[in-house]
């Protein structure tokens, strides 16, 4: 018998009588505007700079002022193609991204309780992009902020499929040396969130 069949046989023999799954019901009573405020407070703790912009024109203006002078800037947002190099599809080996200084990517939505932004492969083309870049900028619509992770997964279940997805909550970090927080462990050293609308 294969290890698979042996393991499954042994597990079946030893698993106890069925215990029911709970129905998860965590009601949210606060308003959307309160979620946005909660998100901004959370991001500040996570060392994420927050910029509120009315539309893409305002975003472009701000990017040109603040971020564009970087050496190599890429984006996966079509509206930003005239201020940054647009990546529309995977054309090269992902290793070619090793010298990207700033990547500007969209997120499907953000979660107020923990500052996490939900990003899937179709939004970033290269899975490694938000990790390999030195600085990360995420653009999310103000209306696409939810409060907690239960709402987040309801939203994920209701939207399109993904091959790879990731919640990103700030720049890469470590506290492995004597519990001292250091930003930029392996991934981005800093992150900015652009709240659109």
């Amino acid at each position, binding site marked *: 018998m294969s290890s698979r069949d042996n393991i*499954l046989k042994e597990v079946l023999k030893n698993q106890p009588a069925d215990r029911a799954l709970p129905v998860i019901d965590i009601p949210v009573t606060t308003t959307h505007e309160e979620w946005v405020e909660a998100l901004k407070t959370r991001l500040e703790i996570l060392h994420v700079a927050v910029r509120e912009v009315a539309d893409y024109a305002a975003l472009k203006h701000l990017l040109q002022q603040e971020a564009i002078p970087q050496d190599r800037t890429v984006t996966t947002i079509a509206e930003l193609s005239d201020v940054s190099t647009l990546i529309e599809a995977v054309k090269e080996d992902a290793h070619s991204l090793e010298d990207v200084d700033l990547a500007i990517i969209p997120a499907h939505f953000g979660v107020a309780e923990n500052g996490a932004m939900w990003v899937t492969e179709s939004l970033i083309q290269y899975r490694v992009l938000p990790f390999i870049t030195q600085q990360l900028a995420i653009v999310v619509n103000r209306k696409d902020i939810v409060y907690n992770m239960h709402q987040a997964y309801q939203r994920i279940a209701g939207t399109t499929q993904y091959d790879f997805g990731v919640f990103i909550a700030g720049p890469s970090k470590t506290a492995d040396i004597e519990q001292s927080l250091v930003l930029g462990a392996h991934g981005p050293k800093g992150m900015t969130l652009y709240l659109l609308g």
Partner: protein
Amino acid sequence: MHSKVTNHADAAIQFNLDEPRVDWHDKTLWFIREKRDLASHAIPEWEQLREYASQIKNNVLSNLSQYLQEFEKNAIANGVIVHWAADAAEHNQIVHEILKKHKVDRMVKSKSMLTEECGLNEHLEHNGIEVIDTDLGERIVQLAKEPPSHIVLPCIHWKKEEIGELFHEHLGTDKGASDPKYLTAAAREHLRETFLTRRVALTGVNFAVAETGEFVVSTNEGNADMGAHLADVHIACMGIEKIIPKQEHLSVFLRLLARSATGQPITTYSSHFKKPQPHQEMHLVLVDNGRSVHLGKDDFRNSLKCIRCAACMNTCPVYRRSGGHSYHNAVAGPIGSILTPNFDMRANKDLPFASTLCGSCSNVCPVKIDIHDQLYKWRQVLMKEGLGPTAKNASMKMMGWVLSKPALYDLSGKAARLVLKYSPFVVSNKMNPWYKQREMPAPPKESFKEWYKKNRSN
């Protein structure tokens, strides 16, 4: 990678020789426990979440065979190559075969306690394959040729000056430099080069979802993603108990995990791997290694609910003052002390005694494992098997004999009171472990029995 220590009490004595260092270790871990408290108290529904998590895990254990098959079916449909390993040896062999097939002799690995449990690094190194651990804490202990001492904070027992010295030797940092920012930047440069040149990456798995066939890996550093996305081959290894039924259950576990572990509301990255990239091979190894047998033990199966947050270690007064290595296993602390006897009762017979049974571990556990009750139950099993600590065996036998003879009991009580009164040094010496860091109590003038006889007429 298991340390050579075999007895918790002996190792704890060694650890306690350096008292200021023990105090430092104790305070560092308590600081993390306090951060956990702040994070959990900020969530009004915290206790409800713990209850949900516990119920979901109970459901998983009671339907594990079905969920494993559902997960396998969905993962295969997603294009993942699924392997099954009965034990550590088969797990190591499967990983080695994948490396051989791709003619690769170097690999990056992000944190996986399972591979520590299986001794994968040693096995591969023995076969001429270089493994580089990419979690900063794991890289530090790897350079020092030590196992991690904590499952979330692998080098919590290291001081920055020592890490500076280690990096000076291995990475060429400035002599005497100990600034965490400087040292982390040096490790970043060293490991970035490694990520860019390795074709195989191995990661652990935090949760695997039966419903979708995806698996989730949580890190703060981004090391799992840097490795996995840049490699031609991604190997993920997990114990069979890491399955959860539905995607929506991730909400409960991701809310609990990081808050319990470090007091963060979520780790920086929670990566959901469903399908391999077009040019990539994705392997998933499901490992039993004693878990299916463990599942059959009514008193002990609950420990399979563990999500490896380490809250029980950070809060444990024994762990904080004895250090992770004294538990001589990949998973230390209270949870390690109830998991490891299931795999090897004799080799880990000391661990259920490495506790005060204060119950703090059970109070902080996000999936409500009855940790201190299981510690107590393991002691009963071990005493019955004749595997209790030698001194305890002898003293228990002596006590049983004295308690069965009332006259002898009275006499021994009197004798003890006299000894404490007139020759306290007989018990207040280093031979008596109770006397270490404690004074013996003042002896009462009479026993309760004598007092009762005198006073009952009143």
